């Protein structure tokens, strides 16, 4: 699933939750901002495909830059949603583990809203997850 599709699906889930009165704690306007971003993201993906078909390197570079900017905006919006979630559900960071293919194990402290945001936004929450999976320590090979 593309990021824009995952984002649109997330917006749809939040809208449904709001309609059912379950997400009253979401900051006002956040879902609309996410919906606008999802539209822009889909447009960017379509433009990218067109530029790629036309071998238009400049167009692709512009798309890349826009994608970077939208990525920053998405991370900020997800951050707002995550903070609101935490305000509602309480703050607790529990220990997680990052296991590399080399066998190294690293302790991480993911944000309390991580699982919930993954449920709502799927792949679109991917980068946010890393940004908020604080590296708590590095262990040697087990």
């Amino acid at each position, binding site marked *: 699933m593309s990021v824009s599709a995952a984002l649109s699906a997330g917006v749809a889930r939040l809208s449904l939750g709001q309609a059912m009165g379950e997400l009253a704690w979401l900051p006002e306007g956040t879902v609309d901002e996410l919906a606008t971003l999802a539209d822009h993201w889909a447009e960017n993906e379509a433009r990218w495909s067109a530029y790629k078909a036309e071998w238009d390197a400049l167009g692709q570079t512009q798309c890349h830059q826009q994608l970077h900017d939208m990525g920053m905006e998405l991370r900020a919006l997800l951050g707002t949603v995550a903070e609101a979630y935490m305000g509602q559900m309480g703050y607790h960071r529990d220990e997680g583990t990052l296991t590399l293919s080399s066998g190294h194990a*690293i302790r991480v402290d993911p944000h309390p809203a991580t699982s919930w945001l993954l449920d709502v936004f799927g792949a679109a929450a*991917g980068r946010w997850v890393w940004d908020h999976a604080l590296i708590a320590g590095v262990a040697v090979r087990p």
Partner: protein
Amino acid sequence: MSPRINPDDLAAAVARLAVLSATGALVWLPAGVVDELTELHQALGDAEQWAESSDPIERQRATARRLHTESAVVEALALIAHAYQTWPGRARRHLATLTLPDGTSLSVVMHPAMTWMLEMFGPLAHVWLRYHGAVSTVVRS
């Protein structure tokens, strides 16, 4: 909040890099980066000394110096990791599994230099890992 850098970890890393450089094993290392890390170690030591001062202005200087120095260390480590990655034959990305506290398992694509950075820098690598470690995060493995 960024993790603190232990000056002893930095000193150990500089020593390892210097020894390996002398053997010719790190020809790809950017010129001057070991000297830069040595200077940053000195700067961290200065900051630690100032932090013990009874003068509040001096202690503020210590905090500013430490933050600035730690940021420079992260940049130097990123430079080294990038040099490692761009050396021919090393562009392979590593997969890792991120396990959340509730048992959710995620696949994360890590920087190609990940394992080498951990083995070379030990605990010091965690400051780099946090900012540059993940190339992308994939949901639900």
